[in-house]
């Protein structure tokens, strides 16, 4: 099993590396960079939702927190190495705290959704209300609705004047995405990850086996928060400005849509979903025939109703059932399974 996993991971990583390397001949690297960042963000939710069964309506909170942490730290410190790590660490710690509060309180389902949503809203409202001069962290004004511009973007560690920009920045983010992908695959294949999947499937059973589900969910949630924060950090460096819009509900909605469209229970699915829809959004921005929100909404409805497992798993199972037909083995409809996964 571990061997098959390894093979799978290696295969996907190499394929993705090749795709990311040749992509710049088709698209500008600044567009590709943001698509990769979106992919990373989708991966964070794909991990905790698809493999831990934790539906977080507020993944944007960690994304925004990562971006703001980086921006504030970069303004204060100047050199980007420490801010970069803080941008991952802060959301990770915050997610751990929030997760502990929720999971040790035995909240589930809808209530989990409400709390994460509400926490995101609090961030959104608070950040929007920080326009006054009294909201200063060190030398960084939080800036309210207008956000924080003009901070140091990513540089070669130790050399604040050697900016990582343009193509170099793209290759860096692509490398980060692959690295995180491999890390997450390893995590899922590890005993910890297997138990996490067990929790998604049946939390009570896992508890009755003697595992502490609360602790494991908290850890998984924190890892997801850290990855989202990493995406936020990279976004900040790409956009050169952070605004409260990062915490908005529509941002959270988009992450969920990416995962649904790409497919839950896989890691590649959400990443692909994010990239495809992210690109679609840019393309749609160049036309004014149909309202973009309308299209996004329609995509979400159609996927939930017609293709609830998302693109990648559907393709996968189409392939398997093709194999299955050859081997003349009958299987029960897999639809039931997905329903369980989504409802945990």
């Amino acid at each position, binding site marked *: 099993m571990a061997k098959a996993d390894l093979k799978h991971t290696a295969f996907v990583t190499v394929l993705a590396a090749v795709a990311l390397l040749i992509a710049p001949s088709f698209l500008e690297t600044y567009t590709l960079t943001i698509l990769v960042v979106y992919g990373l963000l989708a991966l964070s939710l794909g991990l905790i939702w698809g493999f831990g069964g934790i539906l977080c309506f507020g993944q944007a909170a960690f994304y925004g927190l990562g971006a703001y942490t980086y921006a504030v730290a970069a303004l204060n410190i100047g050199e980007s190495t420490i801010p970069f790590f803080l941008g991952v660490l802060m959301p990770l710690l915050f997610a751990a705290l929030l997760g502990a*509060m929720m999971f040790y309180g035995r*909240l589930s389902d809808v209530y989990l959704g*409400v709390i994460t949503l*509400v926490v995101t809203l609090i961030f959104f409202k608070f950040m929007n209300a920080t326009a006054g001069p009294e909201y200063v962290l060190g030398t960084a004004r939080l800036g309210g609705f207008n956000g924080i511009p003009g901070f140091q973007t990513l540089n070669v560690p130790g050399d604040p004047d050697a900016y990582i920009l343009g193509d170099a920045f793209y290759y860096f983010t692509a490398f980060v995405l692959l690295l995180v992908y491999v890390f997450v695959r390893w995590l899922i294949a590890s005993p910890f990850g297997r138990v996490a999947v067990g929790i998604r499937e049946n939390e009570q059973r896992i508890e009755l086996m003697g595992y502490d589900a609360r602790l494991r969910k908290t850890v998984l949630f924190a890892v997801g928060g850290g990855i989202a924060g990493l995406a936020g950090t990279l976004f900040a460096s790409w956009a050169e400005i952070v605004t409260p819009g990062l915490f908005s509900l529509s941002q959270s909605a988009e992450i969920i849509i990416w995962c649904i469209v790409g497919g839950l229970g896989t890691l590649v699915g959400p990443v692909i979903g994010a990239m495809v829809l992210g690109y679609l959004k840019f393309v749609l921005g160049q036309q004014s025939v149909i309202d973009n929100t309308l299209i996004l909404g329609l995509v979400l409805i159609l*996927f*939930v109703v017609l293709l609830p497992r998302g693109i990648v798993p559907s393709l996968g199972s189409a392939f398997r059932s093709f194999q299955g037909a050859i081997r003349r083995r009958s299987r029960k409809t897999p639809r039931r399974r997905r*329903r369980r996964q*989504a409802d945990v």
Partner: protein
Amino acid sequence: MDLATVIIVEILYSIAVLVLISAGLAVVFGMMRVINLAHGEFMMIGGYATIVAVNSGINIYVSMLLVAPLVVGLLGLLVERLIIRHLYGRLVDTMLATWGLSLFLVGVATMIFGNTTTGISPPIAGFSIGAYQVNGYNFFIIVAALVLLAALYAVLSGTRAGLVARGTMQRADMASALGYNPNTIYMVTFFCGSALSGLAGGILAPLVGLVPSTGGTYIAKAFITVISGGSSIIVGVLSSATLFGLVSQVFTFAVSPVVGDVALLVAAVILLRLLPQGITGRFFKGRM
């Protein structure tokens, strides 16, 4: 003294608004275990229906109290047939699909009405309490919320349909055991819930500048109120609306509207942490 009266009126008013904006969502959630995240957009459409009706010469009360609920109720029927009924029993999937619906409706409204703010004037003049002028329409809203709660109570406790509804709330298979088609019940429920959303949208339309994205400002509050209230429709909504209305207004007066909003949200987090099943999951169990 006058100021105290004004503040009390404002608190009652904000509780009433929470009741109005949550009622439709609560009915659908309480009866069907479906969370309709397009609820805010249903309200927005109720608002537009009212404005269009008023502008085409229909009496404002007729527009708010009749046209808006009817239009949105019918829309709800359509939505139930096309989307919701494929997803019964899948709470999270319905949330996602209705989220998609909400985006879709915002898009449609934008294409029809544009993002320009529109609105109508409230039909009731302001009057004074001592040295203070207050918005007369606030009283209309407080009365509307009271009437709505009373009507809900009357229907649920006094009619045959209400009995079936309460049965269904307790156990989903009760209706079919009693010989009713659950499909019909769900359809009727969703119609009523949507109509209530439309009504709320219609009643609030004269107070706010309406834009297609207006729904977003309501959904979060309605969602939080309903979930925190728990599964009982009337007691749940009333208790959580009272709590949140009180908290947010007190902080709004004492500090600022932002702090009021944040206080409401923080109160919700604390409440859910302490009572993970909502208020009526712990107290008033089994009430309506």
